[in-house]
């Protein structure tokens, strides 16, 4: 992170929030920070954030939060403009960091989908694949999740304002599960949980409710998907198709998950 300035400093950092192909859920996490929103608004100049305000200040920006994947030729061009105007570029959410749920199309031919979904397929101008931002421009920091966790978003803004490294862990869900005292759904109930290979961030929302992890935060720092898949198949009796679908979810196009699902094709 660049050296941050506190709000007592001479100039507030200029923040922009950009949307690419996405559902807006991650941007809304920022508006969701009810208690802290005023302090945030006080500490940064929100220069561009269409979900929240019409005001548009020209670049360059100190920080750009980028939501969404690159899914159209227009996206592919625009992301370079955003990069050029941003000192720090932080991707937020599964779309921006791994292509999103719309990247499921990457595993198939695009045309039949377009023909099936749109009344006028001729108006649709889509790229064959939905890809993450880091495939196109340099990314300085990423926040995972579908959607992102508002606590993690605040932590990044907080770290930036206070000139310190953000405390964003890259280990797996299981560490958080055990810290919280959850009973493991894999061991105690035989559910197929992606937690051991999924990065933390959500506060173990699903395992905390006795439901296996869906992998929204994408692969861990060193995901051994092959071993997990072997156990799900050989010991829990899940079929090839189930294992394929398990890895092919919200972050199915993230490298490790994509490769694992392709093995079970």
């Amino acid at each position, binding site marked *: 992170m660049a050296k941050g300035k506190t709000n007592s400093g001479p100039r507030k950092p200029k923040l922009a929030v950009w949307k690419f192909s996405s559902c807006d859920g991650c941007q809304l996490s920022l508006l969701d920070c009810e208690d802290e929103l005023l302090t945030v608004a006080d500490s940064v100049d929100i220069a561009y954030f269409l979900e929240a305000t019409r005001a548009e200040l020209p670049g360059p920006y100190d920080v750009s939060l980028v939501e969404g994947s690159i899914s159209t030729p227009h996206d592919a061009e625009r992301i370079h403009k955003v990069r050029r105007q941003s000192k720090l570029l932080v991707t937020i959410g599964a779309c921006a960091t791994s292509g999103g749920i719309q990247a499921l199309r990457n595993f198939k031919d695009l045309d039949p989908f377009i023909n099936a979904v749109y009344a006028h397929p001729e108006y649709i101008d889509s790229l064959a694949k939905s890809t993450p931002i880091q495939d196109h421009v340099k990314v300085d920091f990423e926040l995972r999740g579908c959607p992102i966790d508002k606590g993690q978003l605040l932590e990044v803004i907080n770290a930036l304002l206070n000139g310190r490294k953000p*405390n964003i862990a890259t280990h797996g869900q*299981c560490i958080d599960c055990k*810290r919280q005292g959850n009973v493991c759904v894999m*061991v*105690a*109930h035989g559910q197929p949980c992606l937690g051991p290979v999924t990065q933390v961030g959500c506060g173990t929302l699903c395992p905390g409710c006795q439901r296996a992890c869906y992998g929204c935060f994408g692969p861990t720092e060193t995901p051994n998907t092959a071993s997990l898949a072997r*156990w799900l198949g050989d010991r829990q009796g899940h079929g090839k198709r189930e294992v394929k679908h398990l890895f092919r979810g919200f972050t199915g196009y993230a490298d490790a998950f994509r490769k694992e699902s392709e093995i079970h094709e």
Partner: protein
Amino acid sequence: MTGEAGAFGAPRVLAAKALDQLITLLAQDGYEVIGPTERDGAVVYDTVDGAADLPLGRLDEQEGGSYRLKSSRKAGYFHHVVGPHNWKRFLYPPHQVLFTAARRRGGFSITVPDAAPPKRAFVGVRACDLAAIQKQDTVFTGRDYKDPGYAARRAAALVVAVNCTRAGGTCFCASMGTGPQVGPGYDLVLTERLTGDRHEFLAQAGSQAGADLLDKLKGRAAKDDDVKAAEAAVTKASRSMGRTMVDGVETLLKENLEHPRWDEVARRCLYCANCTMVCPTCFCSNTQDETSLDGNEAQRVRTWNSCFSIEFSYIHGGAIRREGRSRYRQWITHKLAHWHDQFGSSGCTGCGRCITWCPVGIDITEEARAIAADKGRTKT
């Protein structure tokens, strides 16, 4: 065991319902009572208000990567063994605030959180887990630098231990020399007996606090037969251990640091750290600073972490132990070999939690056995 009158009085026999009275007495003495209770399909440790909160009639079936509870007429309050929780959750909590700091004109002030923790009574501490608490005592208070938070929480804890009369599928305390017979260090120890229509506890005090409690509980003096029956039940448990650790494991591991088995286990290991989280002696943590948005308040927190995570071994220039084999080897050699050099005993009590709660059933005893069966091989 609980034979002759010890320094704190002779053993007594209590009817099963005395357990409820015991919990009430402890609560009246100002203790928060923590004991085994069923939640989400497992026996965990949490506050209990009475014997009704304990998992009466429930048994656990444990294997590598698998845990299931079932009902059994043969099960009393304590015939289950250890579950996913351990006592370090209370003595060395997963999230600890070490200090808070506030910006003041021209500087800052530091506040250390209140050093007086709640008085807690741990009910149902097994032999392996009392041994684990004592190993952590050595780590946190037995050497040059003492952890004041741990020391205070430990000093405020009262231990009601339980001898196991049934061993679980992944237990191996007998081969680690820690159980199933509870060793010294308890305040009160119970051995449960459930035969026909008799349901009772043999109880022995191990401290003045334990003796005072026992005095207040309804019961009778134990006869020789009561003591013998309890001894026989514990001996039976020690003969039916689900697992065994190979002999001489300390030297074995030290002499096989380049064994190809490390690569094999690395292919199975998920690096998920469940083994270290459930282990009652593992103590690794991360320390990080948190700030308020305006930067006027900060706190330093310590959270459980593990040698299986990359960020944990990050030092200047990068993370050490990037390979899976190095991480698994670090864990098992620390536990079973180098702990001896560092703390004068094994770091493993044989509680078996790491085997049961490993999502892919990696078994510390099986890994050691595989190396023993094929000693001296090195990576080719």
